[in-house]
C-alpha cells in the first residue's frame, strides 16, 4: 500500500511494505533509486512493520521542475514520514544513509536508531566546493530527476558539519549509540562519524537486533 504525504509543494510516496504491531522500520533508498516493492531480505529480521519512502524526485514522489535539491531538504522528506508513522528506526542506503543521520539529529526523540549502509550517493560532493555545474537538463523531468542526481552527488559534506548531526543525535536521543555504521565505504564524513564514541560500527544484522530491542 502506498500513502501520499505532503512536504511543502511535493507529494511524497510512502510505501507500507509490511503491516504489523510494534515500532516501524523506515527505509530510505539510495541516490537515483526508489523504494523496494517488498521488504528486502537483509531487513526481513526486523520484528515490526516496514515502511519505505521515495525521496523528492524519486520513485512515485513528485519530480519538481528546476531542481534545488539539498540533503537538508530531504531530511524534511524523512520528517514528513515520521510525522505519519511516529517513532521509528531508520535504515538508509547511500544518500539515504546520510539523510538517516541528519534526521536522527533533527528528531532525536523519534528516531530510535539510524543505520547507515552502503549505496549510491554515500560519498556526496566531498568537503570543499568545486566550480558548480549550473546549467540544468531541458525537457520534462522524470524520476529519478536528473537534477537530483547532479545536485545530490555534489552535495557538500565537510566532516565537521556532518559530525555535528551525529553529536546532536547522541546528546538528545537518550541512547548511548543512536547511530550504527554498517557501510563498508568510508568517505571522509563517514570516517569522522564512525570514529565518534557515540557511534557503533556494526553489521546491519547486529544493528537491527540492537535497535529492535530498545
Amino acid at each position, binding site marked *: 500500500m502506498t500513502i501520499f504525504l*505532503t*512536504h*511543502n*509543494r*511535493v507529494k511524497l510516496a510512502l510505501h507500507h511494505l509490511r503491516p504489523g504491531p510494534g515500532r516501524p522500520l523506515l527505509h530510505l533508498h539510495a541516490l537515483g533509486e526508489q523504494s523496494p516493492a517488498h521488504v528486502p531480505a537483509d531487513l526481513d529480521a526486523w520484528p515490526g512493520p516496514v515502511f519505505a519512502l521515495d525521496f*523528492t524526485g524519486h520513485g512515485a514522489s*513528485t519530480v*519538481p*521542475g*528546476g*531542481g*534545488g*535539491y*539539498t540533503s*537538508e*531538504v530531504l*531530511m*524534511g522528506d524523512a*520528517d*514528513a514520514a515520521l*510525522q505519519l508513522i511516529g517513532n521509528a528506526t531508520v535504515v538508509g542506503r547511500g544518500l539515504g544513509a546520510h539523510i538517516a543521520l541528519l534526521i536522527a*539529529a*533533527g*528528531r*532525536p526523540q523519534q528516531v530510535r536508531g539510524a543505520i547507515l549502509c552502503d549505496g549510491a550517493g554515500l560519498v556526496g560532493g566531498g568537503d*570543499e*566546493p568545486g*566550480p*558548480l*555545474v*549550473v*546549467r*540544468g*537538463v*531541458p525537457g*520534462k*523531468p522524470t524520476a529519478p530527476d536528473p*537534477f537530483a542526481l547532479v*545536485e545530490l552527488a555534489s552535495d*557538500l*559534506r*565537510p566532516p*565537521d*558539519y*556532518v559530525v*555535528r548531526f551525529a553529536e*546532536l543525535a547522541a*546528546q*538528545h536521543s537518550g541512547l548511548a549509540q543512536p547511530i550504527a555504521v554498517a557501510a563498508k565505504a568510508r568517505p571522509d564524513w563517514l570516517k569522522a562519524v564512525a570514529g565518534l564514541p557515540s557511534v557503533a560500527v556494526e553489521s546491519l544484522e547486529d544493528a537491527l537486533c540492537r535497535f529492535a530491542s530498545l
Partner: protein
Amino acid sequence: MTSAQTEETPFLSYPGAQRPNRHRWVDSYGVNIATCEWGPADGPPLFLVHGGSDFAGTFDVFAPLLAAAGWRVISWDHRGHGDSDYAPLYSWDADVRDALSVLDSTTPDPVPVVAHSKGGGMMLQLAEALPLRMSKVVIIDGLPSPEPHPDVSDHEQRRFTQQNLANWLDHRRSAASTFRKPGTIDELAKRRKRMNPRLSDDWLRYLVTIGAKRDADGWRWKLDPAIRFGGFGPWRPDWSLERLRTLRAPLLGLTATVEEEMGWGTNHKALLPFLPPGASLVPFENTGHFVHIEHPQRVASMVLEFLG
C-alpha cells in the same frame, strides 16, 4: 524561453521611481522567473541582482539612472520572490542556475552585473563556474565576510543547535499551509522597517505596492512563506573569501559602514588581502546595507564610470 508579461500600473508613486519598461517570463527548467527591463531594448545589457527576500522592484529608483545612460538594464525576481513562481525546492545553487537562465535568455556574450547582498555571493559563484560569462562585476554590500549572513538562510550556517533543526523541520511541516499575514500598506511597511530600519517610510510603502499583493483581507508580501531565514548548511564563509581572488572580471565593491540586521558586516580592512588584482573597494560612510537605495545617484555615477 521567454514570453511577454502584462504591464501593471504603480499603485503609489515615489520620487524618481519608475516601473520597468518591459516585463517578460524566463522559463528556468520549469520555474517561471519574472524578468523586467528598463531603458532601450537595443542598448547594451546590464544585469541587476537583488538580495535575499527582496525583488527586482527594489531597483525602481536605481535602475532608471543606469538606463538613462543608454544601458538595457535587466533584473529578475528570484524563485519564490516577487512575481516569480513559488518553487517546490529552494537552494543557493538553484538561484544561481535561475540567474544563468536569465542571462542566457538575453545574450550569450559576457555581460556586466551589479549585485546586492546575497545576489553578490550568487554572482561570485557564477563567475567561478563560468569565468568568461561576466565582463565586469559590481557588488553592493555582498562581498564575503568571515561571518555568516542573515539572508543566506540555507547556505552557510554551520553552528546550529538541535533546536534550530527542530524549528526548521516544524516550519517545513507547516510550510504548505502557511500564508503571510495580511495588513494595510502601512502595516506591511512597518514590518519591513524592522529589517530595513534606515529606509524611509515612503519608500517602504511604495515597495509594498510592488512586492505585495492585495487580497480581499489586505496586502500580503509575495515572498513564498516556505522561504525562511535561520536555516543551516555546510557552506563555510572563508571558502567564498579564498575564492574571491580568482575572479577574472574587474571588480568594484561598495560596502556599508553602519551595521544593521540585514547587513553583511563586511569588514573593509579584513577583506583587502582577499581582493583580486585591480579590484577597488569603496566604503560608504554613515550608510547601511542598501547603499544603492540610500545613495542612488552617487552609486549610479560610480557604476557608470566603472562600466565605462
